[in-house]
Structure formats: C-alpha cells, structure tokens
C-alpha cells in the first residue's frame, strides 16, 4: 500500500482570487491600518470583480481602495478611518454621501454579533448595544424586539455570512494551519462566518513548526493559502513591519482629489502604477522598492 499523502493548499494569488466573482459577499480581515490582505485585494481589483458586498468591520484604506476601483456595491462597516492619514476614507465618504454605495451601518459589537450568528448557525444574535441609538432606524435589518425571557428591549442582528473571507496572517504550513502573530484581530470570527477562507501569509513554514506551538494556530484549516511576504503593505503587520505612512498619504491625497473634488487623474495614476499596471505581488514589491520596504521593519 502506498503511503498516503496530505493535500497541500498553497495556491497563487491569481488562483485564490479567482474564487471571488461578481456579486459575492466577501469578508476582509485585519483592523484599521493593520493586517489587511492587500496582495489579494489588489489581485481582486486586477481581475475586475464588480458588485461585491464587503464585510469590512473596522476598516482602513484597504476598503477605500476597493471602492475607488469600483468593485463594491455594499459594505457592512462599523468604523472607516485612515487614522493619522485621513479621518475618513475619501472614496468611501464620497460614495456614501452620493448614495452610490449602500452602507449596512454597524457598530463593532453589532458587527461581531452578526458574524457570530452566522458561525453559530443562528438566524440572529441578540445585542443590547445599539438600543436607544439611530442604528435600527438607519439599518432596518437590525430589528428591535423584546427578549422572550425577561421582556427587555434588545436588537436582533441578522447573521452576517460571507462566501469567502480573505485574511492576512504571519505563517501557515502547506496544509492550511495558520498562525497569526499578535492578537489576530477579528480574523477568527471571519473564518467562522465564511464558507471558504483564503489566507495570505508572510511565510510558509513546515508542519513541524506549526506543531511546536499548536496553541498559536488561529485558523485551523484555511481552504487556500497564498504566499505574500510584506503582503499587508502599505498597512502594518504585527512583529514584521510598520505602516508605510508616506505611501498611505500618497493614496489618500489621490483619493481626496477624486472623492472631494471629482478630479480622478491622480487616483487613476495610483491605480495604474500600483495595481493595474502590474501582474502580481512580487512586481508590486519591486515598484515599492527594497529600500522603502526594509525601512519599515519593526523594532
């Protein structure tokens, strides 16, 4: 009998991103300016995917870029900020104000409740946060109800499930056992709420390396793993590199001109230079340049 072998799940960014097609619901990992799967996001833009619903949670400029590229129809969001770079993503702001972008207005614990409902196989999760606020009025999916035991006023948050979650993490073995460095933000919750999960990682490591610290395995079974060293750039990645403030400002300046003033020349140049005019993540790193990349390494 031939000794059986395990199936590896490492794929290219193009293969992975091809799972994402027009009209799907995707969930994006990371938080604010850290640990978004930027290599996959740039690939999705290159593939010209349209009409996405994005579960974005507390998002940063990764969401703004997807909106800028015209991929997004609807977004579930609790916070959307470029922090020190720009208070609110300019393209998000413009699209939301014009009504082109449909916003499923959330708040962090409401967003978490929706993801949890999906993971638990429930139609809804109750939530006390949001009672008394405008959220159930401006997001009619949030239903006010009285709990069946004590009659207290609560919100019912419907399940937020995703077709595919895309995440960025530190390492994985070839079989999809993924480990984050740091807290992992809400990535485990996205994994649980999604049908399929693609994780881009800084490094592929051996299975033995994973088994040295099984307690660190955060995603026990990614459906696909993509090699993407420095793949959260221009955001940060815990234990690896800091935010590229200059690059984020370059994007934000272009987006402000396009979103605020309707002058989208700079934004088109940005997209061409960093996303559409190249074919993969390694080329992207070359465009950024080794000197810049190495200067971001965390101490």
């Amino acid at each position, binding site marked *: 009998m031939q000794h059986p072998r395990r199936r590896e799940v490492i794929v290219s960014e193009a293969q992975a991103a091809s799972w994402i097609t027009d009209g799907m619901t995707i969930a994006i990992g990371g938080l604010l300016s850290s640990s978004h799967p930027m290599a996959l996001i740039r690939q999705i833009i290159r593939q010209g995917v349209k009409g996405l619903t994005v579960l974005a949670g507390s998002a940063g400029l990764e969401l703004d870029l997807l909106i800028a590229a015209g991929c997004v129809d609807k977004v579930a969001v609790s916070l959307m900020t470029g*922090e020190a770079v720009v208070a609110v993503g300019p393209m998000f702001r413009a699209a939301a104000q014009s009504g082109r972008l449909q916003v499923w207005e959330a708040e962090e614990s409401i967003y978490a409740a929706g993801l949890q409902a999906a993971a638990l196989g429930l139609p809804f999760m109750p939530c006390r946060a949001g009672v008394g606020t405008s959220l159930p009025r401006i997001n009619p999916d949030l239903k006010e109800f009285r709990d069946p035991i004590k009659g207290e006023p609560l919100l019912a948050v419907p399940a937020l499930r995703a077709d595919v979650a895309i995440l960025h993490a530190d390492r994985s073995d070839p079989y999809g056992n993924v480990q984050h460095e740091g807290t992992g933000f809400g990535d485990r919750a996205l994994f649980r709420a999604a049908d399929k999960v693609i994780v881009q990682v800084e490094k592929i490591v051996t299975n033995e390396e994973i088994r040295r610290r099984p307690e660190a395995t955060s995603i026990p079974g990614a459906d696909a793993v993509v090699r993407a060293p420095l793949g959260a750039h221009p955001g940060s990645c815990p234990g690896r590199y800091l935010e590229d403030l200059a690059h984020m400002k370059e994007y934000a300046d272009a987006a402000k001109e396009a979103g605020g003033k309707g002058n989208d020349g700079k934004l088109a140049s940005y997209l061409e230079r960093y996303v559409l005019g190249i074919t993969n993540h390694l080329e992207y790193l070359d465009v950024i340049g080794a000197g810049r990349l190495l200067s971001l390494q965390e101490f």
Partner: protein
Amino acid sequence: MGCAEDYSAAELMAVFLSRDLRDGEMAHLGANQPVPRAAVLLAHLTHAPNMKVSQSLTLANLIDVPRPVPYSEFFTDWRRARWAESYRLGHEVFADVKRFADFFFLGGIQIDRFGNVNLIGTGTDYRRLDFRGPGSGAAAMASTFCPRYYLVAGDHNKRLLVDKVDFISAFGFGDGGREARNALGLPGGGPKYLVTPLCVMDFEPETKRMRLASLHPGVALEQVLENTSFDPVLPENIPTTAAPTSEELAVLRGRIDPQGTLRRG
C-alpha cells in the same frame, strides 16, 4: 506640590481627567486619542498603580516601564504591545462586557446637550448625508455597558456641540430625564463629564442636561456660551478647573508626552 504656570489646554484636560480615574480600573484606549491616553497614563503612573491599560488590543501594567511610554497615531501599532501581559483577541473584546473597561473616552462629530454622540454623519437623509463620519466604532457597546465615560472634545464650537445630534451612535441621556437610560435597560452609567479646551461640563441629575462644572483658568463664561449651540445649565458659582501641579506636569512631560503632542495642539 507646586502649581505650574505654563501648560496647554490639552495638558489641563488630561490632568483633570486623570484625577477622576481610580486605582485598579481597566482602561481601554481607543484610536488616536492623545488626551485620554495621557490621562490614563498619568493616573496610572501616579495614583493608580493597579490600572490595567489596554493598548493595541493587549493588556499591560506600565508602572515599571523604565522609559517614556511610546505614543502612536495608529491604534494597531504593535510596538505598544511590548509590555503585554495578555492579548485581547479581536473577536472576544466584546465577549465579556463586565471586563471591557471601567471607563472610556468618546469624541464625536456631534455631541448634544443630553450627552448623545454622533459619529455617523450629518444631514437629514441618511442615504444622502451632507457629511459622512467615520462610523460608530465600539461606541454603542461601550456607552451601553461601561460604568461611566468621558466625552472629550478637541475643539469647542457650535458645529460640534449641538442642541440635538442628527444621528445617535452612543446614547447618553436621550431626550433627558433621570430615568432615560433605565427605561431602555442600559446598564452603564452614561457620560460623566464633557471636557473641552474651554471648560468641563457635567449632567444635572434630574434633567440630565449638560451643566457647566468649571471654566478653565482664564476662560470667560461668554466664550463658552458663544461657542455652544445649546444653553448649558449654569450653577450659581462657577468654579475654575484646578490647574496641574508641577509634579503632574513633570510625569506628563517626562514619561508620557516627551514629544510634546499635547503642547502642540
């Protein structure tokens, strides 16, 4: 304890807030909040050695940190995790409402006279906002459950301090009244103070309307009234916010804010 003469409004705000924080409390620091950050660290390094400080989703005690505690404009800056004693997994930060934080700080794009906060946007039609804000963050959760919280304004103007917010992200006292929160079953105590560069306000116990609690040294009452859209309740005698001591300023400038962020603004 000497009295320092030269300090910024932001430093005064941080010192005022720090004095209201107690030993043993859990402090959650949000994104890019220099004044609250300074208030928490000042309390921690002076009278609250058992505070637990949440930064970058990690918890730590910082009283033995041998050099200035680093500041970052990015919430997730992992360098602040160097003294971590535990991690707060992102998906579990809200899983234990008792231990999220004993207090927190909230800014807004609008704050009204009953302490309601708007982070969503301004305008009458949600689908066509005049101005889209960043969104509510964790404001609904924190304002629902935390025993108390502080409203912190970087500027004191009529656009921010409105009669009624266009949208409510964090329910303070709704339309007012002592029972405003109980009627909705909200367990937290609601906002305790609004602190601005000009003054401190608290909430009149019966109506829960904002009430002028103290004017910062050198600020005239008219300055506050001219820059506030509503009429705050005015006590008979309006105290002056106590100035920082030289010891407080020494800790603040030496160990917390050597880069002078609070003096620039």
